[in-house]
């Protein structure tokens, strides 16, 4: 398609400029934070840093990495991402296999499906969920971060739609005739065929767990159990160090602007590294979700 009018050429120039500006505007805040984190603390405190480090130093990163609270929270986040994704995916994949059957193959499929879909439409809300989790004595355990969000009905639907459209029925029937049962068919046929979908939705779940901070804040009474996002939330956003039991030096370090910037940047790094690779999967996921049947 060619549009060779003069007006269109002028438009093209404006269009490229505008989009370029928008992209730069999206990145500038991150560049600024990176520059602050790499600057000397005096320069940062004097607001002398814009997009390039002033008095370059890795001091802020040394202080961050040397802070055992930060490292502990980082480890908790790593465990949470792995465990949370594993638990959620196992539950959802098993359920999606059964729900991907037709109504006549699986009596009760409709009821189960609505059972899960209803959780998308209505929920108990913050306070009752909090009460249930505390009544089950899950506070200060990893399970409080993993189980309440394990069943994500939206992901479940994505998976079961994928199973339906991508697993050849003939393959499954051949396996049935050879005497395979549902468990075998699920493990040996469905899972291997669905690796791309499983990867996509696992990534969704991992990003979710890495970024979640609020459940850590309400379910962890001891700040030593905070995942990294929650730790950052209290230290940087709320500036509330009361639960941390810190000595004076660490406290002074943590409230330094450069150290705060370094912490923000470290928390963003995993996303920045994996993002370019996983981005296309997410695009696929969104389009998958918007697909009409």
């Amino acid at each position, binding site marked *: 398609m060619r549009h060779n*009018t003069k*007006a269109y050429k002028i438009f093209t120039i404006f269009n490229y400029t*505008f*989009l370029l500006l*928008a992209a730069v505007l*999206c*990145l500038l*805040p991150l560049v*600024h934070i990176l520059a*602050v984190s790499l600057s000397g603390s005096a320069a940062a405190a*004097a*607001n002398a840093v*814009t997009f390039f480090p002033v008095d370059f130093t890795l001091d802020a990163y040394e202080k961050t990495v040397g802070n055992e609270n930060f490292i502990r929270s980082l480890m908790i986040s790593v465990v949470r991402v792995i465990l949370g994704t594993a638990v959620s995916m196992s539950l959802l994949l098993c*359920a999606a296999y*059964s729900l991907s*059957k037709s109504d*006549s*193959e699986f009596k009760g499929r409709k009821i*189960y499906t609505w059972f*899960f879909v209803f*959780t*998308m439409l209505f*929920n*108990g*809300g*913050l*306070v*009752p*969920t*909090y*009460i*249930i989790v505390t009544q*089950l004595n899950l506070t200060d355990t990893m399970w409080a971060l993993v*189980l309440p969000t*394990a*069943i994500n009905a939206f992901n479940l*639907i994505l998976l079961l*739609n994928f199973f*339906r459209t991508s697993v050849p*029925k003939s393959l499954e029937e051949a396996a049935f005739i050879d005497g395979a049962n*549902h468990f075998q068919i*699920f493990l040996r046929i469905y899972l291997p065929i669905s690796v791309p979908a499983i990867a996509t939705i696992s990534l969704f779940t991992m*990003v979710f767990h*890495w*970024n*979640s*901070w609020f459940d850590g804040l309400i379910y962890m009474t001891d700040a030593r159990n905070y995942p990294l*996002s929650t730790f950052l*939330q209290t230290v*940087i*956003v709320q500036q509330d160090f009361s639960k941390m039991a810190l000595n004076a030096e660490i406290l002074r370090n943590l409230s330094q602007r450069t150290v705060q910037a370094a*912490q923000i940047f470290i928390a*963003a790094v995993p*996303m920045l590294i994996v*993002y370019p690779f996983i981005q296309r999967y*997410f*695009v696929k996921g*969104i*389009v998958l979700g*918007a697909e009409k049947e």
Partner: protein
Amino acid sequence: MGLEKPLPQGDEDKSPYLVEKADKNPNKAVSQKPDKQPKPKKKRQKWNMKRNWQLHALVFPAVVVALIFQYAPMGGLVMAFQDYKPWLGFFNSPWVGLDHFRTMFAYDDARQVIWNTLVISVLKIIFQVLVPLVFALLLNEVYKMTFKRTVQTIIYLPHFLSWVILGGILMDMLSPDGGLVNQVIGLIGIDPIFFLGDNTWFRPTVIISDIWKETGFNTIVFLAAVTAVNPTLYEAAIMDGANRWKQTLFVTIPSMLPIIIVVATLSLGNILNAGFDQIFNLYNPLVYETGDIIDTYVYRVGLINGDFSYGTAVGLFKSLISFVLVVLGYRLAYKYADYRIF
């Protein structure tokens, strides 16, 4: 759904068990005949009956987890009609009827919170349809693929960062004493503005930072729709002498209308969701007047002040309205754009 059903009698209201029984006798009577068609089907039917427990077993764990963590809290909503005391539990706390709801509508701060929620979320919904739509249309005019993909990737990036990180960045950049933004507007002679602590500036800051974070995400949905527009329509338009602007107006946008309707109607369900994560990480008592929303209010009265029942009542009010709106949104999306999620 185009699935081939293995059962010949796909009627949902008939159980396969009954069907099987009815089949049995005639089959036996003619068992001599080499009638091969019904036999394997019958076999599979039996097989299905026997193996059905396996399918139930596979959903079971997910059902249990959902019962405990999704459905038990729904049961816990009875708290909204009680004066819940943790030491009395759901079963022994005294009932108070609709008292908490009456209190809610009598409180000025609750009414203010509902209003704030509506204002912020409606503005967000409008901008989150319009801005991504414009971006998708502009990106569609870019024919250098690397440029297009790079821009797309970059504007999509903030979506993946949590509001804790973005909140930290914004607090630093918007700081009234020498934050980057205030330095820039200082260059053109404007006094420093306390964006996150000033009631006139808080809402615009929230809306704009939301646009910054989410535009890329919604752009992708629209971009998929733009690229799916039938090229012959453009050819016809060109024959009719339409320039690119006219083509956009009369071909592209009308072709995208279904997806625009879907995005708009589905956001109906979010009308009481003004974005807890964002507000919580940006607000402070100075801006409660314009920035406090239902979710942050529920958190403060319910969990911080420990007024469990009142917090639940406000939450339930929100959940009920949202429920109606979500269902309505799906219905409208289905009716006007033939959209179904499953």
